[in-house]
């Protein structure tokens, strides 16, 4: 048995020796069990240098889930259909010059905004709102504090025109300073409309359904509509300025 094994080994050695060196063998397709993975060892250099290769920079970028530092910083969220109400706080030269003239004329009108809708009102007007105002009862006194126009016979103080919303910023609506005027409205009552009857019909049916509805509306009466004089307005501004100063000190 041992002898047989030795002869077999010898035979193997002989066959290996008899083969010519590999470089002289005819060119043939290699059939190997070795896998051709994309290791740097067996991938040619030009392929590594090509655009297909994923650089370490790109890997970092995709891993970090944020954009490159050169990209503009993400802004604070504001949707294009958002709305920003801007109430002016400063006294402008035109207010300083023309408010005395506006104030000197007797009766005034204002464009007052309730829930963003404008109502042109003067003192003593009765306003039937197109909705039922919640949580108010007849006799309650409301202060209206959003106005865009204050006018008299010859002069009008206007707030700037509203700016339309774009992709970068929402709509901006400008209002006059609420310390320029005092408007009080009393809730007078609740108005109702006549009963509405809507006929609902279906095809090929003799039956007609009637739907009844009756809307209710709050009625306001403007009891006070006053424009402050320049002196009063400046005093208010000064008082608030002092108050703010104290607040910051304390």
């Amino acid at each position, binding site marked *: 048995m041992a002898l047989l094994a030795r002869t077999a080994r010898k035979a193997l050695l002989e066959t290996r020796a008899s083969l010519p060196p590999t470089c002289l063998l005819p060119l043939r397709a290699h059939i190997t069990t070795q896998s051709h993975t994309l290791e740097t060892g067996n991938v040619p250099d030009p392929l590594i240098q090509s655009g297909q290769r994923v650089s370490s920079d790109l890997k970092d970028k995709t891993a970090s889930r944020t954009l490159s530092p050169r990209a503009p910083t993400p802004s604070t*969220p504001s*949707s294009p*259909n*958002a709305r920003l109400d801007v109430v002016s706080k400063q006294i402008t030269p035109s207010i300083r010059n023309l408010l005395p003239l506006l104030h000197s004329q007797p009766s005034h009108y204002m464009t007052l905004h309730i829930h963003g809708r404008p109502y042109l009102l003067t003192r003593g007007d009765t306003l039937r709102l197109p909705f039922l105002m919640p949580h*108010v*009862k007849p006799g309650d006194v409301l202060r209206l504090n959003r106005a865009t126009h204050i006018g008299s016979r010859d002069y009008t103080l206007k707030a700037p025109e509203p700016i339309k919303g774009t*992709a970068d910023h*929402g709509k901006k609506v400008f209002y006059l300073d609420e310390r320029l005027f005092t408007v009080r409205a009393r*809730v007078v009552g609740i108005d109702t409309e006549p009963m509405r009857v809507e006929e609902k019909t279906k095809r090929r049916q003799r039956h007609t359904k009637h739907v009844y509805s009756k809307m209710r509306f709050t009625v306001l009466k403007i009891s006070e509509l006053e424009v402050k004089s320049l002196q009063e307005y400046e005093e208010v501004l000064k008082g608030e300025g002092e108050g703010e100063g104290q607040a910051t000190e304390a």
Partner: protein
Amino acid sequence: MSYFRITLMRSGIGMPQKTQGVLKALGLKKRMTTVYHPVTQSVAGQIMRIKELVDVKEVKRALTPAEQKAARRPAPGYYVESRAAQAMKDWE
């Protein structure tokens, strides 16, 4: 973490079914709806498919639908100065 703010500026009506499917997947139902999605590759790829229809901006924080609604709402423009019931009580 930053977010994509995606607003549908043009309707998907008349677009191929695949495009409309992308709109549905992103939650864009009708024009001018705004949705927020985290900045990821998959969302970026979805945006690329509908880039002609939407406006995209990268923002720091996603707004909830409630916050979006509050941002659209105008100021009431009034406040109750005195209640009639309280005034009667004081007078008596």
